[in-house]
């Protein structure tokens, strides 16, 4: 094993200082559920590692009109958000109990595809990220954060510190297809949210995971649904638009062909779930 230094900064400022001093050669780790398997396998060989577990980023706070999730908040913490069933469902479908005790919400944003199922739910919730650099903080919408395959808008001297959502309006649904019930990367993940007003969809979010270089919002599908009634025809149209927007790859989990078919199926299921309870409620 090659690690010569393991840092455990006690604050965000300390972490940012370390990042500035050691630059891009510092492996930044939170829960370790993504980084450690790669280190154990010898695929990743860092010399210096920085753990964010003691930096005060593990909180989950409610404030009027918003929920603030620390970047290093364990995924298990999301299970207590009874008013955000979409996140509860996404967390339940991520890893296992032990993985959720270690893996973090922030870390989930950096999971290589096909993983990152909590990210898919956060996209449907219009999450905003707070990112800190030397002496400054900025906000980035989650739906602009991922810029390509394993690339993000995070600068080399920046750290993700918080994820913010507003208590959601509308009805939500979460569906994930994997190889088994727990601890499985996704074939496809769908998180949907719709506000139904007088029988018509006034606002829609359809987020997809595992069918592109990163989790994304299927905007054409959202547009196809907005203004329509939530019926079989509009659901079929929306699912088609979602499949057209996706760019699935064949990997060890599933083939491109299968992913396309399952994207359609899961989008239809999610929207049918919402149609059955337009007043809102559990995912």
């Amino acid at each position, binding site marked *: 094993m*090659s690690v010569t230094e393991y840092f455990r900064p006690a604050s965000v400022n300390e972490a940012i200082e370390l990042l500035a001093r050691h630059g891009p050669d510092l492996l930044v*780790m939170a829960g370790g559920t*993504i980084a450690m398997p790669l280190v154990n396998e010898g*695929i990743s*060989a860092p010399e210096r590692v920085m753990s964010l577990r003691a930096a005060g980023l593990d909180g989950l706070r409610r404030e009027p009109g918003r929920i603030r999730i620390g970047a290093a908040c364990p995924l298990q913490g999301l299970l207590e958000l009874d008013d955000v069933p979409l996140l509860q469902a996404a967390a339940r479908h991520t890893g296992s109990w032990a993985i959720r005790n270690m893996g973090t919400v922030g870390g989930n944003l950096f999971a290589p595809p096909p993983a990152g199922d909590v990210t898919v739910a956060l996209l449907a919730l219009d999450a905003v990220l707070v990112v800190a650099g030397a002496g400054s903080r900025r906000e980035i919408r989650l739906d602009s954060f991922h810029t390509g395959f394993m690339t993000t808008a995070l600068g080399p001297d920046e750290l993700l510190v918080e994820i913010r959502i507003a208590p959601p309006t509308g009805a939500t649904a979460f569906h994930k297809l994997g190889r088994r019930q727990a601890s499985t990367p996704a074939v496809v993940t769908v998180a949907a949210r719709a506000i139904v007003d007088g029988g018509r969809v006034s606002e829609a979010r359809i987020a997809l995971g595992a069918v592109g270089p990163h989790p994304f919002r299927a905007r054409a599908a959202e547009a196809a649904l907005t203004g329509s009634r939530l019926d079989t025809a509009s659901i079929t149209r929306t699912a088609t638009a979602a499949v057209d927007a996706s760019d699935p790859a064949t990997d*060890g989990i599933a083939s491109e062909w299968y992913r396309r078919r399952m994207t359609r199926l899961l989008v239809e299921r999610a929207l049918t779930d919402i149609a059955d309870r337009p007043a809102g409620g559990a995912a």
Partner: protein
Amino acid sequence: MRVAGHRTLAAPRDEVFEAIHDPTMLLACIPGCEAVERVSPTGYRAQFALRLPSIAGSYELSVRVVDAIPPASCRLDGRVAGRPGAVTGQATLELTDVDGGSLLDYTVDARIDGPLAWLDSTLVERLARGILEQGLARLDHDLARRAMAGDAEARP
């Protein structure tokens, strides 16, 4: 593993050929690539640090120009090796003149050895493609900047 692609560069193919035939400039475009040195008339070496979320590693990159038919094509033999393993292969680069610049077609055939071979091959291909495309975008940018500087000098 095979990765193939293309990119239109906003420079005439003579210039592009000169740039890719001199790996000092080419390698400098690869994100994380440092300290390019020429070790022989056709051979170059560089240090390369992989900087992706959750994956770290230092590698040595060595490249040799095997074939060159200016300004149309060139072949490079290369190897990227470090503790996580090695990627050994060949890259073929072809250039054609197009409106506004030149079209660069690339094909890379490579073998992966060591722990890196445990990674899902589609992941490695997408990673490799990402690195190549970032490198070509940087090359495009550098050539454009050089052209602008050239223009600026040419004006009295």
